[in-house]
């Protein structure tokens, strides 16, 4: 497939969930959030059409996908050999002009001097069935067009990391349906960031929202380097029913020369709550809105950062269906009975239901 101009890049405002095959899971979700009126840092997706063009160029015999499908889940040496060679080819491949031009132009429109975040957006990731959490690349604070193109290639290549390939083999996902979009998004200078589950990650309770937050960029939580603050909000009453402020020894901040820098926090700063009560409530309300929009519990990434006018606001960076508990939802807690009081008769009989 050739990447014709216009197919290579799609802006968030022009895509939604239905565009997953073209822009991948993360890109589709960010588009959907943008369309739903949420505050999302602006950005675009380098489409799977671009990916397919490059893949075709480095795979003249068109047999990469078939080779992967022939691998056995447990055969790590074989997986390593195949995956490593594919990745290597992605990293050195010559990019068609159409792609380079389209990406650079979009980058300029986004405000090229500002740093961007570059994130993998595979067609298979972030679905209700498979999270692919953390298996594919994310590059933060990417500065300049050269670095951006490097990051895009790295994201493509990460689709063929050993872990990703193993994961797909385990889930028996058909390779021909797997492709990689790459999200390019304005980088936020977040004061605080974290994740939010619109149900309890501990009990699966859908009536609460669990928020984890830390100071600085969200990468500190994702990488597990800090113990985040934890907040639990009751969806029905809006009450903050639990509030645990942890000692956060460090935060991630954007490095001057691109990338992320770890910054130690002094004693007085460590105990500062990542979020005020008002922010917790606002965030929970946003979570509820997104959940309603999707019609299912969500796993959301958020950040509190100044906008272009310097006013702090809450941004959503990602929303994907919650996968762990939703699988258990398939079994209802109880089944309707012929007559309402049959429930009581059954309970009083005390037989296991």
């Amino acid at each position, binding site marked *: 497939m050739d990447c014709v101009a216009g197919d290579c890049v799609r802006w968030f405002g022009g895509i939604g969930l239905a565009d997953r095959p073209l822009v991948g899971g993360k890109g589709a979700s960010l588009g959907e959030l943008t369309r739903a009126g949420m505050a999302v840092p602006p950005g675009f997706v380098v489409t799977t059409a671009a990916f397919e063009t490059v893949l075709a160029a480095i795979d003249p015999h068109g047999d990469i996908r078939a080779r992967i499908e022939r691998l056995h889940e447990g055969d790590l040496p074989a997986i390593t050999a195949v995956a490593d060679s594919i990745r290597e080819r992605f990293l050195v491949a010559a990019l068609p002009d159409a792609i380079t031009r389209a990406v650079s132009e979009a980058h300029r429109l986004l405000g090229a001097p500002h740093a961007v975040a570059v994130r993998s957006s595979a067609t298979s990731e972030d679905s209700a069935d498979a999270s692919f959490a953390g298996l594919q690349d994310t590059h933060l604070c990417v500065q300049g067009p050269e670095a951006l193109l490097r990051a895009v290639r790295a994201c493509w290549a990460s689709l063929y990391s050993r872990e990703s390939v193993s994961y797909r083999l385990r889930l028996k996902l058909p390779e021909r349906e797997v492709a990689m979009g790459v999200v390019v998004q304005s980088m936020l200078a977040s004061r605080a960031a974290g994740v939010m589950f619109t149900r*309890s990650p501990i*009990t*699966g*309770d*859908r*009536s*609460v929202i669990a928020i984890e937050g830390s100071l600085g960029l969200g990468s500190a939580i994702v990488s597990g380097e800090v113990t985040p603050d934890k907040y*639990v909000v009751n*969806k*029905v*009453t809006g*009450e903050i*029913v639990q509030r645990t402020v942890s000692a956060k020894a460090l935060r991630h901040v954007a490095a001057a020369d691109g990338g992320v820098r770890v910054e130690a926090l002094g004693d007085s700063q460590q105990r500062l709550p990542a979020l005020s009560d008002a922010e917790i409530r606002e965030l929970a309300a946003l979570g509820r809105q997104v959940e309603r929009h999707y019609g299912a519990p969500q796993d959301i990434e958020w950040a509190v950062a100044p906008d272009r006018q310097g006013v702090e606001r809450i941004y959503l960076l990602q929303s994907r269906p919650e996968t762990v508990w939703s699988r258990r*939802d398939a079994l*209802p*807690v*109880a*089944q*309707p*009975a012929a*007559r*309402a*009081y049959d*429930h*009581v*008769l059954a*309970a*009083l*009989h*005390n037989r296991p239901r």
Partner: protein
Amino acid sequence: MDARVTRRFPLPSEIKDVPGTEGWRDMYPFFTRVRPEDDQRFWFYNSMHFPEPMPSFDSITSEVPYTGLGAYTTRVFAFPTALGIDHRIINGRVYITANTVTDPEEIERRLQVFQQRAPHYYENWNELYQQWERRLHALIAEVDAIEVPQLPEFEDPAVVFEARGIAQNHYVRAAFHRCVECFSKMWHHHFEFLMLGYGAYLVFFQFCKKAFPEIAEQMVARMVAGVEVLMFRPDDELKRLARLAVELGVDAPFIDRADPQQVLAAVGGLGEPGQRWLAELEKSRHPWFNTSTGDGFYHHHRSWNDDLSVPFSALPRYVAMVRAGKSIDRPTEQLRRERTRIIAEYRELLASDAERAVFDQMLGLCHVVFPYVENHKFYCEHWFTTRFYSKMREFGALLARKGVIDDLEDVFHLQHFEVDQALVDVMLAWAAGSAPAGAEHWKPMIAERKRILEKLKDWTAPPALGPMPDSIEDPAVQMLWGITSETLSMWSRGHDAPDSNELVGFAASPGVVEGLARVLKSVNEIGQMQDGEILVCAVTAPSWGPVFGKIRAAVSDIGGTMSHAAIVAREYGMPAVVGTGQATSRIRTGQRIRVDGDRGIVTLLG
């Protein structure tokens, strides 16, 4: 259950008499005494219904209810796993245990009967409940109408001229028996629907806990509870009367601590508006002032009608609020809207339409049974029981007039079986033209019992006795006992750690408040409550309603999330912890405490 807390409680046989109370056993019928085999069973102190040592007569409020309750579970509906309740009186306190069925074949056999019978009530609930209300009205009228013969020197001439053929001493015993009979019928009616109603609550609670593992019981209770329940009516009537007094301009006599009779006389002297207010008061009094100042289990739980000082102590406050232009009405519309919203939100949050269908079925059934479950208390424990005790006072007056007891109230220091004998003695003497023998027999006995009863009040009753069961998972037993494995674990924690400065109970209404405690032993003491204090009591009932306008938080020994204190606290938006088991014995008036209604913990600070 947590292994650390599976410590056993004292055995029934290990409980010592309180020095100086030897002979307390004779105060109660023989069948309430501890038997050797009782050491094998787990008992718990029913402090919810019997927070004080029992006067002899009042043990009828354990004997008769348990004959009614067990009849319905064991024999009438044949609950598959649950029979009835055994009770024992130990140092004046009522301990109970539930009898269960564990043999699978026996359960199956009972299930066959149960499945044929229970549906009749569920399917015809509203119609049967209306019939029930008519029956209760009739029963209350019947007990009210019972005439206690006065045994004058000569019989009523009508007995001769209408050739009735029966002299009135016959009716002394007959009337007494009819009172006891009505009391027994009332308790049968009381349990006619109750366990089936609790069953509907229980399955909904369990469903909510499964669907929303972190849901607070108080949220489930808010979905179930109705807004218009009789429980609130007496207090609503007071508010109506307060508003009316201000409207009619007859509000001046309503001042703190004024004697009700003087207030009535003053209002009566205010011309036509005063007369109108008094007429409205009469309308409120019948039936709404037939509300007990306790929960109807003791003879000293008089009704507002018996003792107007309770409602009249609340009126000045309401009058002052009306004058100041403050709203005193329950925000029923808002409560209803909020309930509708909560229900809709939880319903939407369920995972599937199948679960939503279950939710609708179970909550729908709760709403069907709710009016009975909540309203029966007004008819049974309040209205009927206060009338019953008033009637007993008439028998007490007869005995006092005949000189066999000193004061009419002394009748409550005799078992009802003994009252029977005391009356027969008087009947005989009236007929024989001689003096009754009772004075020498009853008076010393009554004096001794009064002394013993006073001493028994100092005894701290263990919350439970005997080997603790691992858990109480059987929903029917939970319904019978009103307690769960969590309650047991909570109690035994308190039992193990008398030095802990924390009391654990149910989080009944959210919020955290610190303040000074006021421990009230009975509703008659509500006049002592100062603005901004925290109420600490054994249990609350509708007659406690007025106190909630003054306090900042409520703590009770007894009760769950559907208890009166819990419901009212939520409506007033104040923190409450209920079912602590021991708040009134651990907290002193004037002590600084923190009430955490989110976690269900009371901390003693000072």
